[in-house]
């Protein structure tokens, strides 16, 4: 038996301490990685493998290689869902975000009164669950009794917002604007409040008018916020599901309200085509990745200052 001595005790403690110091960081981050592996890593790999198989029933599967991918690219409902999703995403970027920015500028201005009340009012819709939003807007868009057609007969006729194919996605986009514009407004507002007043003063000294100050001071200063909001909104738009699912009763009529995630859900859970659903998921992942990289590049986020 080795008897510890006064001579080797401090050395042993130091050695032990060094070992603990090496291991400790890994132990601290272990819970995250453990959860990541179980809830993200494994499902990701599993779904990738699944996308290479056709599954049938609860136990059978056949390896089809890229067969699901080639089937998907020849599937008209997938393309329709992709078009609808892109339509919504473009609608969000071109309608919702400018409205959000405009609201933020108005609420950041010195001339508007009751800012806190207005901020709360514009932000409040995001607190309503998507399911309830869809139910409420179902009533709002009703062809004969709905608020929109009753109060705003701007087109001179009753519009079948949820009954005619061409109006379904505009109705979904407008609902998205109502629900999310206030939320994005908060990001823009935070960005606006972070711009140093001296920049505007300097611009004024240089003779810049309001518009020039907006173009040359506000927008460049907001670039990181705009990039963030654009990318997050785009990802959210591409993952659109609950709002049109309830608003259009599963994408009807004639799949006019179908989105990629809705089609994924239908294939996975309603048609029991799990391999095909996994394929849709991976295609969606690549679409989101490519679109996000392009957006970030265009907005100059990768550019060194």
């Amino acid at each position, binding site marked *: 038996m080795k008897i510890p001595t006064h001579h080797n005790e401090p050395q042993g403690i130091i050695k032990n301490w060094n070992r603990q110091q090496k291991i400790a960081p890994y132990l601290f981050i272990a819970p995250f990685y453990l959860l990541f592996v179980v809830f993200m890593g494994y499902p990701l790999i599993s779904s990738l493998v699944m996308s290479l198989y*056709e599954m*049938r*029933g*609860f*136990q*059978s599967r*056949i390896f*089809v290689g890229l067969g699901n991918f080639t089937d998907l690219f020849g599937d008209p409902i997938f393309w329709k869902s992709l078009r609808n999703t892109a339509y919504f995403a473009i609608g969000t970027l071109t309608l919702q975000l400018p409205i959000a920015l405009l609201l933020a500028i108005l609420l950041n201005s010195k001339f508007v009164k009751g800012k806190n009340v207005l901020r709360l009012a514009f932000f409040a819709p995001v607190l309503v669950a998507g399911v309830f939003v869809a139910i409420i807007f*179902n*009533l709002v868009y*009703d*062809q*004969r*009794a*709905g608020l929109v057609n009753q109060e705003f007969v701007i087109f001179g006729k009753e519009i079948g917002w*949820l*009954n005619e194919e061409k109006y379904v996605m505009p109705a979904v986009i407008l609902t998205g604007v109502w629900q999310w514009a206030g939320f994005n407004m908060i990001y823009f507002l935070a960005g606006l409040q972070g711009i140093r007043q001296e920049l505007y003063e300097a611009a004024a000294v240089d003779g810049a008018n309001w518009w020039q100050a907006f173009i040359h001071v506000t927008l460049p200063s907001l670039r990181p916020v705009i990039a963030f909001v654009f990318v997050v909104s785009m990802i959210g738009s591409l993952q659109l599901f609950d709002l049109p699912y309830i*608003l*259009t*009763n*599963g994408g*009807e*009529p*004639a*799949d006019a309200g179908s989105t990629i995630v809705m089609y994924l859900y*239908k294939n996975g*859970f*309603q*048609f*029991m085509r*799990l391999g095909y659903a996994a394929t849709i998921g991976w295609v969606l992942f690549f679409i989101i990745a490519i679109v996000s990289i392009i957006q970030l590049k265009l907005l100059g986020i990768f550019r060194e200052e």
Partner: protein
Amino acid sequence: MLRLAIDAEGFPLGKGPMVMLVLFLISTLFIFGRSEEEGEDLEFWIFANTHYEEYQARVPIFEAENPGVNVRLINFGGTMHDKLLAAMLSNFGAPDLVEVEITSIGRFLKGAIDEIGFVDLRPRLERESWMDKLVVSRFTPWSYRGRIFGVPHDLHPVVLLYRDDLFKAAGVEMTAVETWDDFIAAGKKATRDLDGDGKIDQYAIVLDRRTESDYFSLLLQQGGGFFDEDGTVIIDSELAIETLEFFTALFNAHEIATPVYGTWHGDPSNFAAMQDGKILSILAPDWYVGILKSQVPQMSGKWKAIGMPAWQPGGRRTTTRGGTMIGITKQCENPDRAWELLKFTYFDRPGLVNRYETTRIIPPLKAAWDAPIFKEPDVYLGGQPLGELFIELAPDLPARYQNPYWSEAADLLNDAIFAAVTEKQTPREALTELAEKVRALIAKDAGRWGEQH
């Protein structure tokens, strides 16, 4: 605890993590330390609130009659079918008994017949002679390849619910309507522009053109369907095409039908239109009458009911829409005990009478039909004994054959109906194209998997 609180200052990561750790330990002890109840557990999953309420009231009676058995009722609402699918896929966590809705059962029937997650109940039903005691056509939605995977909860016969006052005001006596030709004649009189603004203010009937619900009900009434008993696609049969031609004509040629207000018959907009007198009739299954009573009680006394108009004089006056089954999953450890609970909830006469009282759902057990409640005047229908009418029609219910491809087929059928009603395609074109798509889907799978899948 006091000591712990005092020592929190000395906890390496501070007070917050200390509190979180304590809460974590307490909840872990609570979750894992719960003593198991004595006896045998039966888990029963439900998706409908009304069913849940009914079983909640009745299960204690079953438990009292079967000492040592604990029934755990779980109501998952609309997400239940997805949860069941996940449990069957992972071969873990499925309940002993479960109720499944008619439009959802198809997906559970995919794959080899032996891989289906429900116990075949045919041997038990035949051994105990239950088949003859129930309306036998109602087993078809829950049967596949000769096996019976569920027992019907209901019959869901359909009647024509109509506004007697408004039809009479238009000079129409609806009790004289026997066929669809009679209905069209009556409907043309009753569909009217009341204020002379050139817009029709009241339509003879409201129909859903976005989904298969009304068209498919009419097709079943004719004896048709999407698939036949052997699983062959028959949606492009002359019968199906003629039925869709008739359906579209109600909107376009005869102009007596209005599309459903909102997205389905249960939409608040649709109820509002009914209250405004814009809708004079509707094809109503028994469960829909229950919904009307709870959603628009103010319309009590305004409705009357007759059997659906027949396609030919003397023909079938009803169809069926919707439905639920109860099944025993293969993960059940004691199917005999589960079978006893199944019989208690589905074949017990007092329970079925109580079900009609609360939901207006007619039970498939014929022995329950002579209960006085079914003959009672229904205040909502101005005193007409609605139960009696449903029971009179019940033995004539059409069969509705189930198929694993029903979900895909129904999704495409919705598109075909909408295309035909909005005149983008003729009914023949729409249904021919639809049938080709579904046949191609089945053929592709058969090529990969063989006919037995």
